[in-house]
């Protein structure tokens, strides 16, 4: 069964229960931060912050608006990060989560570069004490938590370990307004479309990167909320296009260009 997560930003109150629920379940380190003018904190995803709520003040028709957009790995249907991983450490599970097996990760950062959503982070430090406060929790393997090996790529794994036990991801379970939901991907997309039509809004994630397992309902264009513009093409199509364009260079040329490609962000190339 392929699941997906719905993020209906029109219902989000910015309480950030999801942000701390994620840290709690995955035993992620607190980060030392400073005041953020728009209240977003930490300012972006890191190897120890797998989801973050972006706060944004806007104005529509002279009325003030304050938007809260939860952000994390989009769990692509066809994840470029998995495709480029030389150590085969990244899997797309049949349920939907894209999971990094950090015990296999060699820290090459190809996935960080390849991600069209800029959602994979290189974690150079692992879980740490801050203010002398340690983490609570069951010590799990470092695939499931922020602990264990350092110098690896880390990101949201959609609580694949909870899904396996018949529970929703931690951020979904804690969402008090029901802004984050979880279910069969086809149903989630249907829900998103119905809701987007009701609020005269936008669906994000149905088509981006060929479809993702996280689907948003937005009441403002994605780019206004700071979400990246991503091609609707699947990664395989992106690559097929690329190879078509390089035509008869032959296998050696392909390898060289392939290398060049890996050090370039596809999103930068493909953004519309």
């Amino acid at each position, binding site marked *: 069964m392929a699941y997906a997560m719905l993020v209906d930003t029109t219902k989000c109150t910015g309480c950030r*229960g999801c942000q701390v629920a994620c840290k709690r379940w995955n035993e992620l380190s607190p980060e030392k931060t400073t005041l953020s*003018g728009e209240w977003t*904190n930490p300012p972006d995803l890191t190897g120890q912050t797998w989801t973050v709520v972006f706060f944004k003040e806007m104005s529509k028709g002279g009325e003030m608006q304050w938007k809260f957009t939860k952000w994390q790995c989009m769990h692509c249907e*066809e994840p470029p990060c998995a495709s480029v991983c030389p*150590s085969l450490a990244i899997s*797309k599970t049949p349920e939907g989560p894209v999971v990094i097996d950090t015990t296999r990760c060699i820290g090459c950062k190809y996935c960080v570069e390849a991600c069209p959503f800029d959602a994979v982070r290189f974690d150079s430090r692992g879980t740490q004490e*801050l203010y002398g406060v340690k983490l609570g929790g069951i010590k*799990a393997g470092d695939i499931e938590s922020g602990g264990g090996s350092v110098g690896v790529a880390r990101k949201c794994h959609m609580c*694949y370990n909870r899904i396996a036990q018949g529970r929703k991801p931690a951020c979904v379970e804690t969402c008090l307004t029901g802004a984050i939901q979880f279910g069969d991907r086809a149903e989630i997309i249907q829900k998103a479309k119905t809701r987007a039509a009701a609020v005269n809004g936008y669906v994000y994630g149905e088509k981006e990167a060929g479809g993702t397992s996280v689907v948003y309902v937005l009441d403002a264009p994605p780019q206004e909320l700071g979400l990246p513009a991503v091609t609707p093409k699947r990664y395989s199509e992106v690559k097929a296009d690329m190879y078509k364009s390089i035509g008869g260079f032959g296998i050696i040329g392909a*390898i060289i260009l392939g290398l060049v490609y890996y050090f370039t962000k596809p999103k930068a190339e493909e953004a519309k």
Partner: protein
Amino acid sequence: MEFEKEVKLSRRDFLKLSGAAAASSMAGLSFSFSEAYALPPPKKKVVAGQQINTICYYCSVGCGIVATVIDGKAVNIEGDPEHPINEGTLCSKAHALVQMYAHNNPHRLIKPLMRTNPKKGVDQEPKWREISWEEAFAAIAAKVKASVDAFYKENPLPDKDGNYAISGKKFPVAWVGSAYSHNEENYLFRKLSVLLGTNNIEHQARRCHASTVAALAATYGFGAMTNHFIDAKNSKCIMMIGSNAAEQHPIYFRWVTRAKENGAKLIVLDPRFTRSASKADIFTWFRPGTDVAIFMGLINYAIANNLVDSAYVKDRTDADKELAGGKIYEELKKVASSYTVEEVSKITGIPADKFRLIADTYCRTKPGTILYSMGTTQHTNATQMIRAYAILQLLLGNVGVPGGGVNAIRGISNVQGSTDMATLAHILPPYRRVPTNAADIRGFQKYKNLVAEKKPAADIAAEFKIAPIDLRHYATWLLYMKHWGIYAGTYPENDPEKGAVISDLPIGAGNSSVEIYRSVKAGDTKVLFVVGENPAVSNPNLPDVMAALSSESVFTVVMEMFESETAHFADILLPASSLLEKEGSVTNSGRWAQWRNVTQPPPGEAKTDLWFVDELFKRLRKAGAMVLPSEKFQKDRGASLGTDPDGKWNYGSPPSAEAVLKEINATNALYMGIIAADGKNLAKRRDKTPADEMDANYGFFKNWGFSWPDNQRVLYKTDETAVLARALGRNFFTADKKAIIYASAWAAKGFGIPVHNEPAESPDAELRDKYAPLIGTHPAAPPANKELKIGDASKYPIVLTTFRLSEHMHTTMTRNMPWLNELMPEPFVEMNPSLAGKLGVKSGDFVLVKSARKPEGIKIKAVVTNRVKPLTINSKPVEIVAIPWHWGFKSLNPGSSANMLTIDAIDAWASIPETKVALCSVEKA
């Protein structure tokens, strides 16, 4: 949702999808692409070890949480999916609770400490020395005994009138309890204070909803939230004013969202654009401290546009009663008529069109409910504000109906309960007056004699020329004589007129929250207990509070989990158990009493408040520091009054919360029935089966926990199924069961009907003249408002308001939790770009914010935002700035305290300080 229990974590064959070209491009890089690796199966279990459910620590919503305990150690905390209020969801603060346990947090106090540096002050290190509990008790008992002995030397018994009674205010010991403590603990705090001889007992509730209690009790009968949290889903129009539920009571917003999904309108009025405002259908900014004008304006609008539910008003209120100048309704109409849309706009800064839209939407959409909180309650005229809310709801027929009501959202998880247990200077549990003077005790003796004669209550009431309902005060004192083993009355008993008055109940109200520290500063309070509160951050006018706490004449005992700002001034610092480490009942703001369970024992030598107060009682008795006036009388006169406080203080060893709850069940009228006839503790009930059809329709959950009174879920709903025959909450709790629009007790000073008064510090001279603040020479000004440092608008032209953040809970706990510090690391002042432009300030720059309390100002970072904006007040622009008040000089991330600037003016009817509005100036640092 059902998921497959076992998920095959096979690797997707991306090679097949991406084709040969991709494979070839990988060839040079990958070690192997022959076979995909499988992920190992998950190790981490959602359900492991023991699952212990309890009630969340923080706000008054009362969400259920579940702790996972392995080998006696709590390792995880999740939302309780079975809990009807939160249904498994939680806010950011609750998820960080695992960082409260000492095994995760080395900052928890685990040993009693004694100060060795005799000097006190912010800059004075206490130089703690670890001591034993024995040493701590010895030091405390000696200090209490010395101060009590000195007090009795100056105020000997019998007094000059031959009476054995003491002033509850003059007594040199003060106790500051806590709304974080359980009902049983608060009950014993209050009992202990009475046995000591003091009414100088206060806690957070004074700054929380003291004005709600005064206003709603005076209008409806009970000073509490009328409906409950889940009930918001039944509403069609929700007006939030002085509340920011999305941030301060996040799970309440779950039910507000549910209502919105069902088509309800959300109207938010706030001096700031908040996270609640972001979800509003209609939002307006307004100047803090002008709620009476808004609501008298709404009342005027409802009357003028025939939007009043006349049948309801006639049937259920005093509107038709005659006053000297006509009917009460006419008087209301007359007073309200001066609050025209234009006048309201002039005072509040709400544009006239916006006000009309709000008035029309709210008055026409039913059932409508008003949600409010500290934005309303903390004003010098807060009681009148809430009265105005309550009257509007009566006019619209919105009281006693699901989805309606005046929903006073309290702050702390047990602040409803701690108020019901009267950890307050002016009442005894539950909301019974303290004896006002010796004559009151003589009256009580008369009452006792009539009861002994077995006269019916109606006849007794007739003798006192009061309504039978007003006999409740004497009836409760009688219960305390029996259950506390104390005496109040005359000797001989058959001579209430001339016999000697003996009262173990201290006479007269004690010092309120603000006054306690003034009394400390004046040297009158010699021993101060602070158990679970942090006034060195949360009280207004902190420079004065800190000066008081630094005084060498006071011996301060603080019981805390962390070294708080107040603990920094302590002589003895005792390690407290967290709420995750003790059991007892807590009452949420919707009046649901629920049971907390122990998730693991307290760390080190930390103890529960229950253990501490029980032990302290025994030690003080043994040391002779706690001798009742009746005992002195018995000794002097050789007479027996039958007092036996020791025999009646018997809760087991260690003390059991349930044993105390049994006594509460017998003495506290609101909690009668919490222990069922079969001995079952109903606070422990976890049954979601609806009790009847009404329960099923509206989501009352009458089989979950216990709701006071008589398990009533919506107060004043006449047809809600009654559990006890008396059905206390089914109608207005007034002499004739009608709600009170006209408050005759307050009429002499001009407050029969609410009228607007400017805040203590008003930015507009003209408005200040027209609507005089309740300070100085104003006839309604309380004595405490006569000595204030008032700032003038010429020097301090900017309106300051204070607020809280979703990510922090008040002052101490959350600032010691790294995950929450990450979200909100430091304090700031919010200002509009227009003010920032004038000052040349951008977000992140430091500014100095100054007020009359702190003329040198506090240094704080600026956040430049449109969430606050200048308003047009009386045709002139007024800038408004806002500071969250969580921070202080201790904790993981110290920061400037907003309350350094706030004013310690208090409400004239409820003594709650005006921390929500003051004047300030801002300059670039």
